[in-house]
C-alpha cells in the first residue's frame, strides 16, 4: 500500500483538490462530529436564517455516534456510521464551506455534484474498527445539541486519524474503481 499522506486541519480548498481517490491519509487537528439528527437541525437553522453553531469553512465532519467514554478516556469506541443517511442535508452544509467528510458507504449523485462544485473530499474510515480509531482521538467536546446524546455536535482533537479518500473533488469514486478491478461475476 502507498505511503500515507499527512493532513493537518483546516483543510483548504487547495489541499483538498490535490487529494485523489484511493489516497491513504492520516488526519491531525480538529474535526467535528454530526449525524442525521444534528444535520437536520443545522439545515433547518439555515432555512430559518440562523447561524450554525460552528463555522464549517475548511472543516471536516466525521459521521460517528461514539460509545460512552469510560472514566479517564476521552471517548469510547468511535467508528464511522453510514454516510448515506446524511445525503439529504450534505449539499447545504457543503455550501457553507465544509471541505471534508469522513464516514462509510456510498454517497448520492447530488452530494458528489456539490463536492465537485465546492471542492470537497469524502473519506472512508474502516467501519467496525471503532476501538482502533478511538486511539487516534485525543479530545471530545460537545459544542451543541447536547440533548441528542451520541448524536450531539462535537469537536474532536485527532492525531493521525486513518482514512481513505473514496470520492475526490473531481468526483472520482474509489468504491467503483476498486470493485471493478476485482469483479469477475
Amino acid at each position, binding site marked *: 500500500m502507498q505511503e500515507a499522506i499527512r493532513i493537518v486541519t483546516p483543510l483548504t480548498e487547495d489541499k483538498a483538490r490535490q487529494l485523489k481517490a484511493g489516497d491513504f491519509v492520516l488526519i491531525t487537528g480538529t474535526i467535528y462530529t454530526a449525524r442525521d439528527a444534528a444535520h437536520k437541525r443545522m439545515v433547518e437553522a439555515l432555512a430559518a436564517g440562523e447561524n450554525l453553531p460552528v463555522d464549517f469553512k475548511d472543516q471536516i465532519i466525521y459521521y460517528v455516534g461514539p460509545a460512552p467514554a469510560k472514566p479517564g478516556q476521552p471517548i469510547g469506541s468511535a467508528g464511522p456510521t453510514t454516510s448515506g443517511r446524511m445525503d439529504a442535508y450534505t449539499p447545504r452544509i457543503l455550501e457553507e464551506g465544509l471541505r471534508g467528510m469522513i464516514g*462509510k*458507504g*456510498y454517497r448520492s449523485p447530488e452530494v458528489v455534484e456539490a463536492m465537485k462544485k465546492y471542492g470537497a473530499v469524502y473519506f472512508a474510515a474502516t*467501519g467496525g474498527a471503532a476501538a482502533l480509531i478511538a486511539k487516534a482521538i485525543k479530545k471530545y467536546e460537545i459544542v451543541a445539541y447536547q440533548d441528542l446524546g451520541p448524536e450531539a455536535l462535537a469537536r474532536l482533537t485527532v492525531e493521525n486519524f486513518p482514512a481513505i479518500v473514496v470520492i475526490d473533488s473531481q468526483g472520482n469514486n474509489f468504491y467503483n474503481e476498486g470493485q471493478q478491478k476485482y469483479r469477475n*461475476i
Partner: protein
Amino acid sequence: MRTIDVSQITATVAKLAVDANYYLSDDIRAALEAGQEREESPLGRAILGQLVENACIARDEQMPICQDTGMAVIFLEVGQDVHITGGSLVDAVNAGVAKGYTEGYLRKSVVGEPLFNRKNTGDNTPAVLHTTIVPGDKIKITLAPKGFGSENMSALKMFKPADGLPAVKKFVIDTIFNAGSNPCPPIVVGIGIGGTMEKAALMAKQALLRPIDKRSSHSEYANLEQELLDLINKTGIGPQGLGGRVTALAVNVEYYPTHIAGLPVAININCHATRHAEAEL
C-alpha cells in the same frame, strides 16, 4: 421442576451484553486472518489487518469492538421443567440489557417509538426477545447485538415455487450488490428459506448464530452455502467495499418446511464482527 430466580437471568443477560460487544469470537478472528492470506488487494489486506488489531484493542482495553453496540436481540431456550420465580421473565431480560449497556459503557441506540417521536429510551431497552420452550430443566440465553449498518441492508422476498434455485441465488447476489460497502464488509450472510414470512426472517437471524466454520448438516444446503460464498466473493466488493476478494466470511443457510404455494427467502446481513455470546443457567 427446577427453580430459577429472575435475578440470575438479569445478571447473565448483563454479562452477555458486555461480552458480546467486547470480544470477537474465535471463528471470526480465524476467518479474518485467513482472509488476509488470500486477499489480493493491498488495501483490502490492510483493512483486514486493522480489523484484527481492532479486536485485540477492544479485548485488551475492555471496550466495544464497534461503537454501534446494537439493539439487543435475545434468544431464550427455556426448559419446560423450569419454574421461573421472583418476577416477570421479560422484565428481567430488559433489566439485564439496561444494566449491561449502562455498566459496560455500551452505546444506547434504541428509540422508544419508530415513526413519530424517535426519543432514545436511554438504556437500550427493550430487547427483541425470541423465546422457545424446549425439553429439560435449563435456560439457554444467547445475546446477539445487532448494529443497523448491516441490519438496514437485509431483505425478504416471497417467491413462487416455480422461481426455484436460480431466483434464490439471484436475490442473494442482488441484495449483496445493493448493500455494497454499507454493512462493513467482510460480511456474514444469514439466510432463511421456507416456513412463513416471519419464520424465514427469524431463521435468517438464527443462521448468524451458527459458527461460521460449521456448514449446514444437509449436504445440498451445505453446497449452496459454499456456492453462494464463492459468488459473493466474485462481486469484487471486498473489505469495506473498496475492492477485493474477501467480501463475505461465510454464508449460513437455515431451512424449514413450507406451504405448497410458497418459497419465502430472507437474507440477514451482518458486519464482520457478527457478535454473539451465550450462557446456560
